C-alpha cells in the first residue's frame, strides 16, 4: 500500500504517465508501444517524454493496425517481455477482437501454462468530451466476457497510478480502461514514487445508509456529485467504486447492500447486456435477502453513443438521472 511519502496534485493522464515512467525504469522487460505513443507521446500525451528517456527500442510507434498491435503484443509477452500496448480509443479495439477472444484470454489455458501473457492493454474510453464517432464507446462488457483477462477501470489519479503499476506486474493480461473525461477533468493528490494497489477490490468512496450507488470509471464522479446533492436533502448515499470489473469483488458490493438495502448501478455503456447487468444479477443472487427494492440501472441508452455533441449529455448518465433512480428505489 501507499507508504508515507510526498504527494503532488496531478491529473489522471499525468498519473498514467508517471506509472509508465516508473514501470519502464524499474523493469527492463517493460516495453511501450502503439499508434503515436513514441514521438508524439500518445494522442492524450500519456506517454509524453518517455521515448526520449528510454529510447526507441522500449517506447515505439507501430503501424496503424489494432489486430496486429494486440497480436504483436501477445507474441512479445510470450517471448519474455512485459508489453504495455496502447489502443488509441477503446472503440478501436473491435478489429482486435479475434486476437483478444481467440488468444489473449486463453493462451495460458490453451498451452496449459506453457505460454502466458503478462500484457497490459491501455485504452481511453467513454464520453463527455465531444469526440467524433466511435471515440466515446464503452466496450468494457465485451472485454469482461472474455475468460482469462482482467478488466480494470480507475476513477482517480491516485488509483490510476497504483492500479496501472499493479496491472503491469500482474501475470495475466489486463485491460486498463481510462475515462477520457477524467484525463484532465479531475486532479488529486498522488503519492510520489512506486506503489501498487491491489486488483480485484472494490472500494467504498463515500459511506451512506439510504442506498448504494455502484459505479466505475467516469461514473464514480457523477455518483459522488449525486451523493452530495442528496446529502443536502438529508439522504446519505453510499458510493462504491467497482474499480476491477474482472475479477469482481462481489462481497464488497453485497456488504454495502446489506447495509443500505437498495442499489443503483451506474455505467455509461448501453444498458442491455452492459456490465451493470452483471452487477445487478450478482446482487439478485447473493443479496436478495437484504434488498428492499429492485436493483435499478442507470446507463446509456440502447443506441450508439451519439456523435452529435449538442445532445450527447442526454446519453451519458448524469446527476439528474442518478437521483431519479435513487428516488425510485427509495419509494419502493
Amino acid at each position, binding site marked *: 500500500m501507499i507508504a508515507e511519502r510526498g504527494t503532488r496534485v496531478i491529473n489522471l493522464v499525468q498519473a498514467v504517465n508517471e506509472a509508465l515512467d516508473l514501470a519502464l525504469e524499474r523493469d527492463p522487460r517493460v516495453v511501450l508501444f502503439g499508434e503515436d505513443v513514441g514521438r508524439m507521446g500518445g494522442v492524450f500525451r500519456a506517454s509524453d517524454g518517455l521515448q526520449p528517456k528510454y529510447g526507441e527500442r522500449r517506447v515505439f510507434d507501430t503501424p496503424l493496425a489494432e489486430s496486429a498491435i494486440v497480436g504483436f503484443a501477445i507474441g512479445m509477452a510470450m517471448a519474455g517481455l512485459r508489453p504495455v500496448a496502447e489502443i488509441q480509443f477503446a472503440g478501436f479495439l473491435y478489429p482486435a477482437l479475434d486476437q483478444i477472444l481467440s488468444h489473449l484470454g486463453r493462451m495460458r489455458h490453451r498451452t496449459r501454462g506453457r505460454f502466458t501473457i503478462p500484457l497490459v492493454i491501455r485504452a481511453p474510453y467513454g464520453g463527455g468530451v465531444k469526440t467524433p464517432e466511435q471515440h466515446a464507446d464503452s466496450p468494457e462488457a465485451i472485454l469482461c466476457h472474455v475468460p482469462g483477462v482482467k478488466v480494470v477501470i480507475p476513477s482517480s489519479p491516485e488509483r490510476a497510478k497504483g492500479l496501472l503499476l499493479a496491472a503491469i506486474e500482474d501475470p495475466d493480461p489486463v485491460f486498463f480502461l481510462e475515462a477520457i473525461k477524467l484525463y484532465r477533468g479531475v486532479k488529486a493528490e498522488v503519492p510520489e514514487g512506486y506503489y501498487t494497489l491491489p486488483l480485484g477490490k472494490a472500494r467504498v468512496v463515500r459511506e451512506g445508509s439510504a442506498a448504494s450507488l455502484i459505479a466505475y470509471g467516469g461514473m464514480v464522479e457523477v455518483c459522488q456529485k449525486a451523493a452530495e446533492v442528496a446529502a443536502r436533502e438529508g439522504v446519505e448515499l453510499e458510493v462504491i467504486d467497482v474499480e476491477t470489473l474482472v475479477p*469482481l469483488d462481489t462481497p464488497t458490493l453485497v456488504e454495502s447492500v446489506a447495509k443500505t438495502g437498495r442499489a443503483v448501478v451506474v455505467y455509461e455503456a448501453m444498458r442491455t447486456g452492459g456490465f451493470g447487468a452483471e452487477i445487478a444479477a450478482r446482487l439478485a443472487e447473493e443479496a436478495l435477502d437484504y434488498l428492499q427494492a429492485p436493483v435499478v440501472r442507470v446507463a446509456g441508452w440502447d443506441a450508439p453513443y451519439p456523435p452529435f455533441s449538442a445532445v450527447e449529455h442526454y446519453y451519458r448518465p448524469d446527476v439528474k438521472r442518478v437521483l431519479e433512480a435513487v428516488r425510485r428505489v427509495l419509494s419502493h
Partner: protein
Amino acid sequence: MEIIRYLEDDGTPQRDLPFLPEELLLGYRALRRARHFDERALVLQRQGRLGVYPPFRGQEAAQVGVALCLEPARDWLLPSYRETAAAITFGMPLSKLILSWRADPAGWGAPPEVNMVQFYIPIATQVPQAAGVAHALRLQGKEAVAAVFIGDGGTSEGDFHEGLNFASVFDAPLLVVVQNNGWAISVPTQKQMKVQRIALKAQGYGIPGVTVDGNDLVAVWAVAREAVARARAGEGPTLIEALTYRVAPHTSSDDPGRYRSEDEAEAWKKRDPIDRMRGCLVHLGLWDDEKEKALEEELEAEFLAAVEEADRVSEPRPWEIVEQVYAELQPDQRAAWNYLHGGEA
C-alpha cells in the same frame, strides 16, 4: 516467377545439392517419421482413439524442410493445425502430439525445451503473434528466429497482411511459410486470390518472397536455411510459398469427393515428396530396400512406445476446466473448482 527446385519428379538431382550425404539421410528420415505418424494417427482416429485429426500427407517436405533449420530451445514455431510434421521435426514428443489430437490438455503444453505454441485453429491469427515473438527475441539480443505456418486460405485474412507489415517494418527475424496446397477446405486457390503466386505478396511489404516446390525437400530446406541465416543476421523476414497438395482430406471429418476430382489427387500422388526424396537417395547410392525396412521397423516401435506413453496419461479431471485460466484461481474459478471437486456450487 521462378519455382525453386532441386529434384526431378523421380528424385533425380537437377543440379548440385547444397547438403552433405549424412544431412540428406537425416532429412529423409525426418520425412518418413512424419509420414509414419500421419498414417498411424489416421488408424488411431478410425479406432476412436484420436479426436478430429487433420492429416498432412503430401505436405511433409514443405514442413520438414523448414523445421530442420530450427532449434527447438532457441527458435520458435507457431503452427496451424496442419503442421504436425513440422512439430515432430521441431522436437515435440510424439506422445504429446497424440495427446494433443486426442483433445487431452496434457498434450497442449510443449516441454520447456521446445518453443512450440499449441496448434492454432483460427486462421492466420498467429502471424502478428509470430512477428511479436520474433521482435521480442531480437530486442533481447538473441540470434533466434520464429517460423509461422499458414495455408493459402490464410493469406486472405487481415492478420496475414498486418503481421507481414509489422514483421517487415521492425525487421523481425521471421519466416512466414505459406503451404499453398491448392484448397481452403473446398475453395480452390483461384477463388481465394487473383495473384498467381503468393510469394509476390512479399513485394507489398518490401521483403523477399520465394516460391519453392513444396514437394521437394531439398528445395524447401535450402530456401529455409537461407531465410533463417538472413533472419539471424538481422536482415528481417522472408515469405516462403511452398507449392504442395493436400492429398488427404482437410480433416478426418471431411469428404473431398464433394469438391475435387480424384484425378487431381492421383496426379499429385505421383509427385509424392517421400518417394521423390527416396529416389534422390537411391540415385546417389545412399539408400536401399534393406535400409528402408529397418527404418520402418524403428519408426513403428517408436510410435507404439509413444501410444503407450500417451495411454498412461490419465484423462483430464473436471477441475482442469478452470485451471490455467488465470495464474491463480480467481473467485469465480475458485467456486467452480470447489464444485468440480464435489463441493457445493
